[in-house]
């Protein structure tokens, strides 16, 4: 248990459903809770926020006990000092962006003038000064998300909770907002817990992933661990992603595209979905170097297995150059008539700059 950050271990009973969760998030750490709908993700977040009382267990933040079922201790949401960004952002529709950000400051007794000045400073910092006087209805999804983030962070909470922070966005804005969120979370010094049903968000944003299934933790660990060695079929299906480390062989390639996580020492990690991997028997004519200046990279691989997955074929691959293992999922029409034999050699092309 980390006394400085969030330390939580609790159960919540909702009828026949039981959520059983332990979390320890240090300051600066980002933990992502992933799982399908109904897994208990939102209940977990609402419990930490104080909107739901745990049936058993404790929640403490920065050494302060927020919940202790044994001693009937329960601090209401308003007294917890936890920032929450809700799924639909839940901006107050009758207030402007600046008033939304100032809301918490006013609620805590800051004089009106100071609160509004501080709110505008935060909106400036978030690149929203032009929208300070707009109502939420006039903001784009990405802008609304940043206002919601500013509204939570302006109070300088010790813990930030994000409930499906990207789910309300369309695919186009999602990419930008995700990249922006990475930046914001890096600047934020407190602990962060985010809930998402999208493993890609988790992998990109978090340094720890907790996979929740039917209210229980199915697996936990660093994104690379969880994606590389899923604990069970469920996690594998859920995650279904690859983290690829690319060695820097060309100068200037360190800056990854959106969604890529910069690694240490110039190395970079790229997240790829198996469905994005193209497989061919011949070396593609446009094959690019591994550095991916053209936005994709091609490896020569050995086929280590073939699986049928309800209408799709999964081909397990191993890079001949460095032994890296990953897989490709192909539509049946993309598979040649005689298929790919185990042990045969193929060329796999991965997008490494542009993501879905």
């Amino acid at each position, binding site marked *: 248990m980390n006394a400085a950050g969030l330390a939580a271990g609790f159960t919540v009973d909702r009828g026949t459903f039981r959520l059983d969760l332990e979390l320890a998030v240090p300051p600066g750490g980002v933990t992502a809770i992933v799982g399908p709908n109904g897994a208990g993700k939102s209940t977990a977040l609402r419990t930490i*926020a*104080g*909107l739901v009382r745990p049936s058993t267990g404790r929640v403490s933040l920065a050494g302060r006990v927020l919940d202790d079922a044994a001693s009937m201790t329960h601090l*209401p*949401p*308003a*007294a*917890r*000092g*936890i*920032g*929450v960004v*809700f799924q*639909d*952002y*839940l*901006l*107050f*529709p*009758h207030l402007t962006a600046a008033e939304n950000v100032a*809301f*918490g400051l*006013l*609620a*805590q007794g800051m004089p009106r003038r100071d609160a509004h000045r501080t709110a505008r400073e935060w909106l400036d910092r978030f690149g929203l000064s032009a929208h300070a006087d707009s*109502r*939420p*209805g*006039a903001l784009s999804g990405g802008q*609304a998300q940043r206002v919601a983030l500013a*509204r*939570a962070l302006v*109070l300088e909470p010790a813990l930030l909770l994000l409930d499906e922070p990207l789910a309300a966005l369309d695919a186009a804005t999602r990419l930008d907002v995700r990249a922006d969120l990475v930046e914001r979370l890096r600047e934020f010094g407190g602990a962060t817990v985010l809930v998402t049903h999208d493993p890609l968000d988790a992998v990109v944003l978090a340094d720890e992933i907790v996979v929740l299934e039917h209210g229980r933790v199915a697996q936990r660990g660093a994104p690379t661990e969880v994606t590389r060695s899923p604990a069970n079929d469920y996690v594998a299906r859920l995650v279904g992603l690859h983290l690829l480390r690319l060695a820097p062989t060309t100068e200037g390639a360190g800056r990854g595209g959106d969604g890529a996580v910069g690694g240490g020492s110039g190395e970079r990690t790229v997240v790829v979905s198996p469905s994005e991997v193209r497989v061919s028997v011949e070396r593609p004519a446009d094959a690019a170097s591994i550095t991916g200046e053209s936005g994709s990279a091609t490896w020569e691989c050995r086929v280590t297995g073939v699986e049928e997955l309800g209408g799709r074929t999964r081909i397990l691959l191993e890079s001949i150059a460095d032994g890296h293992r990953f897989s490709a999922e192909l539509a049946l029409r993309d598979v040649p008539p005689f298929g790919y034999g185990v042990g045969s050699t193929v060329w796999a092309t991965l997008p490494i700059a542009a993501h879905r």
Partner: protein
Amino acid sequence: MRGSRTGSPGLRAPRSPDARRSGIPAALWAPAVLALAFLVLPLVALVVRVPWSRLPELLAAPEIATSLGLSLGSAAAATALSLLFGIPLAWVLARSAHWNPVARRSLRALVTVPLVLPPVVGGVALLLLLGRRGLLGQYLDAWFGIQLPFTTAAVVIAQTFVAMPFLVLAVEGALRGADRRLEDAAATLGASDWFIFRRVTLPLIAPGVAAGAVLCFARALGEFGATITFAGNFPGVTQTMPLSAYLALQSNPDAAYVISLVLLVVSVLVLVSLRDRWVSGVTA
């Protein structure tokens, strides 16, 4: 719910005229027109019957100004009281979802009773409670020397009794329709319950409150039975427009038509202006 990303989409009027036109099936037009005619034609008949040539003379009667002033003042006071006490009651009703269903339904039924009770019976009930021999009234009289019947305060009480349920039901509906998660969001920002109520809940339900207040005011303005029974009838003290119209009907029907016309015009003016201003204040 202007601009609310989370509000019910059904609350928004369709933007394009085409969508609006196709939204009303032809089969609804005939009954709609009949309904409107049914509501409006009696008023037309009343207006036709008004002795227009003697209008200035009849309007100049001082009783009209007196009872109009009393009506507007008491209806405004009744609306204010209803807002002050009715909004909290609506809040309790709207938040009673997790109560025992019998208790919840009983509470709602009790709130609705004044709507279905004949107003005269309501007036008798008020006398039995607040009259000088009433359940509470006897102590008001004995301890404080307060006698409510036959006072302007009694007019306001009678009007509040019959009109407040309209406000409570309207506000309760608005509360049920409002997104409670916004209150959760406010709580996580450190706001106290009272701060949330004032700064989040109340603004969110403002259109419902406005509609309820308008209904409440209109009902109070037209109140007759409970007023005559509980407050009595005395010019300048308890004689509101409806009472004066009723009495005039006994002896001087022309005067009664004129009083009714004034009541009609004032009601329409107040309802139209109030509604426009309040609703536009919220949706602008």
